[in-house]
C-alpha cells in the first residue's frame, strides 16, 4: 500500500485556471506538508499542517490554499494559475513535528504541474 499518495500524477492546464492536487496518507501521521520542486530541482516548503491546523505558511501567494479536512488528507488548491506555478509538487507526512528531530518524513511521488 502506498503510504503517501498524490493525485493526479500529471496535471497540464492553461493559465488562469483553478486546479487542485489531492494528498492522502495512511500512516496515521499527525503532520502533513506541501513542498514545491522547481525546474532546477530546488525543493522548498510551502505549508505544513498538524492535525488539521496550519503550522507553516511559507510566504506563498494566496492563490495557493491548502485544505485539510482531516489529519490524513492535505489538499492543495491553486487559483488563477500562472506560468511560474509549473513545478513538481510533493506532499509529505510525518509523525508529529513536536517530536523533532525524531521525525520520520514520508514523501509522495509528486504531481508534475505544467501551466501553458
Amino acid at each position, binding site marked *: 500500500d502506498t503510504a503517501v499518495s498524490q493525485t493526479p500524477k500529471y496535471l497540464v492546464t492553461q493559465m488562469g485556471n483553478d486546479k487542485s492536487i489531492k494528498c492522502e496518507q495512511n500512516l496515521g501521521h499527525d*503532520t502533513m*506538508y506541501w513542498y514545491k520542486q522547481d525546474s532546477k530541482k*530546488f*525543493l522548498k516548503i510551502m505549508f505544513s499542517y498538524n492535525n488539521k491546523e496550519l*503550522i507553516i505558511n511559507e510566504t506563498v501567494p494566496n492563490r495557493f490554499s491548502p485544505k485539510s479536512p482531516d489529519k490524513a488528507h492535505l489538499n492543495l488548491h491553486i487559483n488563477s494559475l500562472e506560468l511560474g506555478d509549473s513545478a513538481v509538487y510533493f506532499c509529505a507526512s510525518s509523525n508529529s513535528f513536536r517530536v523533532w528531530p525524531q521525525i520520520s518524513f514520508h514523501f509522495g511521488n509528486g504531481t508534475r504541474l505544467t501551466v501553458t
Partner: protein
Amino acid sequence: AQSVAQPEDQVNVAEGNPLTVKCTYSVSGNPYLFWYVQYPNRGLQFLLKYITGDNLVKGSYGFEAEFNKSQTSFHLKKPSALVSDSALYFCAGGPRDNQGGKLIFGQGTELSVKP
C-alpha cells in the same frame, strides 16, 4: 537566513570507486542534518540523519555521512559506488528549535555512477 548548500550540481563516479557528495550548512545553533535520495518520478527517500553524538552517521544502502562542525559540512560518502546509486541526492537541515518540522533543502546533486 538559514541555508543548506550542495556545491556540485553533478558528481560522476566509476562503479566500485568511493563517492562523496558535498553539503555545507548555515543553520543556527547545532542543526539537525539529513540526507535524502530521489529516484526519477519518485518522492524522496530517507538515507540518514545526524542529531547528536558520533560525528560519523551510517545510513541506508551503505551510505554514511560525517558531521564536521568546524567546516559546517555534512558530506555523504560511500566506499564503493554502485550503478544503482545513480539518483538525485538532497542534503537538508533544520534548527534545533524547529517550528513546524520544516526542512531546509540544498539544491540537489545528481550522482551518476558508470559501469
